């Protein structure tokens, strides 16, 4: 039986880099150590802020190994295995399985697959069934139309079609979805999967979660920087008020934190990896703000604006 996925805050980790543009293992460990008590899970090597597609297979495996070695109480890991092609994806999944099977006991691991980057909706259920045969671990689908548009301009459909999702979810190994998109599509997806109460719908869009939270949780990149605020907001949203101790000032505290994360979101939403790495570097969490794609690096003007914002929010 496929283990169920956690509810709550999943931190979509940035990948700190060395001067040689390789993943910085030490900085990555520091980043995870800083987050692990507040995150329900971490997402490693994502195609979005994790810049996964820029790294070689060994480098991506190295990221997984680092996340798993973050101590006995390391949080569960969601590892993005999506490659640019079907072959790359299968290769990375097989390599990860080989590594996990041979290694020490580790925290639970699941795989994130944003298949529309390299595969159309046609025969997608069959493709996922084939991937599922390579592992017994839970699979989480990524529905990220902007990312698909950015990486693979030729792909006609940027979203998983609802009927296709319904077929895919007939496989209990597919246990969740990272959702980006509009509320109508979210509603259609939820309706299609009504027979799967165990299925996790994670919001991948932070702004969306702030307005209408999914009851499974959030995959958040902003939590790299403001993990406490995001954790409080996610826990507040998932408890949905009834079980929360209404201590004096709780309401205004949640509003204050929501305002803070919205303010930060407005700064980093266009180039999240670059802004978040720069912010983490400014606050001394990681040594370098280097991005895998040099074209993504912040301009002086952007860096100045970010610094002002961080000072205003008392991060520095």
């Amino acid at each position, binding site marked *: 039986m496929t283990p*169920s996925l956690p509810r709550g805050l999943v931190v979509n980790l940035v990948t700190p880099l060395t001067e040689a543009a390789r993943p910085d293992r030490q900085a990555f460990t520091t980043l995870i150590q800083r987050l692990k008590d507040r995150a329900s899970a971490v997402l490693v090597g994502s195609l979005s802020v994790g810049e996964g597609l820029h790294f070689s297979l060994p480098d991506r495996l190295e990221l997984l190994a680092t996340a798993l070695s973050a101590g006995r109480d390391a949080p569960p890991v969601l590892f993005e295995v999506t490659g640019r092609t079907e072959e790359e994806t299968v290769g990375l999944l097989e390599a990860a399985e080989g590594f996990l099977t041979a290694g020490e006991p580790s925290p639970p691991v699941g795989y994130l697959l944003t298949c529309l980057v390299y595969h159309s909706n046609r025969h997608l259920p069959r493709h996922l069934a084939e991937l599922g045969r390579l592992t017994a671990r839970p699979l989480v689908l990524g529905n990220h139309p902007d990312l698909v548009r950015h990486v693979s301009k030729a792909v006609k459909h940027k979203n998983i079609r609802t009927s296709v999702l319904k077929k895919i979810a007939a496989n209990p190994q597919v246990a969740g979805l990272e959702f980006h998109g509009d*509320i*109508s599509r*979210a*509603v259609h997806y*939820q*309706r299609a999967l*009504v*027979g799967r*109460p165990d299925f996790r*719908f994670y919001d991948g869009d932070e702004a969306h979660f*702030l*307005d*209408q*939270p*999914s*009851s*499974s949780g959030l995959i958040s990149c902003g939590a790299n920087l403001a993990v406490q605020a995001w954790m409080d*907001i996610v*826990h*507040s*949203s*998932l*408890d*949905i*008020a*009834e*079980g*929360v101790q209404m201590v004096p000032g709780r*309401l205004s505290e*949640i*509003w204050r934190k*929501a305002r803070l994360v919205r303010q930060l979101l407005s700064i980093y939403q266009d180039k999240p990896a670059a802004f978040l790495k720069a912010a983490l570097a400014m606050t001394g969490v990681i040594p370098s703000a280097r991005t895998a794609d040099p074209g993504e690096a912040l301009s002086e003007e952007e860096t100045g604006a970010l610094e002002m914002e961080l000072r205003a929010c008392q991060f520095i």
Partner: protein
Amino acid sequence: MSRRTKTGDKVTSPKKPQTTIREAQEVLRIEAEGILALVDRVGQTFVEAVDLIYASSGRVIVTGIGKSGLVARKIAATLNSTGTPALFLHPVEALHGDLGMVIYGDILLALSHSGETEVNDIIPTVRGLGAQVIAMTGNLDSTLARQADLVLDVGVAREACPLGLAPTASTTAQTAMGDALAVALIHRRQFNSDDFKRFHPGGSLGERLSLAVREVMTTGERVPSVPGGMRLGEALEIMSRSRLGVLLVVDERGVLTGVFTDGDLRRSLMRHGDVQDLPLEEVMTRQPKKIGQETTAAEALELMQQHEITTLPIVDEAGRLLGVVHLHALLGKGKFRFNAPDPKRP
């Protein structure tokens, strides 16, 4: 666009009306979807919950805290309005003495979206008092779900309110599930003879209802059967003597062709005035309800309830009259009334 209040303060709307409308529509859509998702989750557990409440000798004690507590109050009120005795129990007050209201045979209906509230603290004691527990929760892995005898899943995929400031779709789902329970119980409480037998199998009534009607029907000369050509004046004398309130009209082969009841008599008097000389076949009800002699008393009773009649002719395969059964023969005088409201009463 701006306007001023009575005190002269300027009131500005930071959002376009379309944005506000869209936001409201999204809230309603999310809440509607939350309820729609419940439709497919209503299954055997729901039936068992209805059975449990219906068969219980006690009351339904509804409990919850926070917004679930408010929904619990509403569900208790709805149950009371629909014939299921119910009480609201505040879980914190329960721990300070109010648990005394729980008695053996009660059902605790515990509401909690998260399944991790103070409601859990009272469950062991409630169980000790002999009450069974139905949980209504959105978290099937919760402490509440694990402690309950039955779990009604009211989980929703998404809330409509930001930041968890207030539950929205989840409390809507709880309310709707509470209504579903109350309405299902209304239907169960409509008199159903099979259920009567099931819940009173050892009673004389339950025993009698399991018999075939041939064992309880009136036969022979006591059956008020008359030919269709008989004049009404003469027929009414036979009707009065039989004290069944019905005449069974047969042809020369003994085949049932109609019935004449007290109701038919009233209608005839209103329509014709003097009815003494009218032949029965002109005023009788043709194609009456009838049953075979192997029909069970329970089925006969159900047919009577369904059509609001008190007698049923019994015929053989050829339609020949064998006898008649009256409601009183099935139940005994004064022990039964239909649930259907009497239209003559205000």
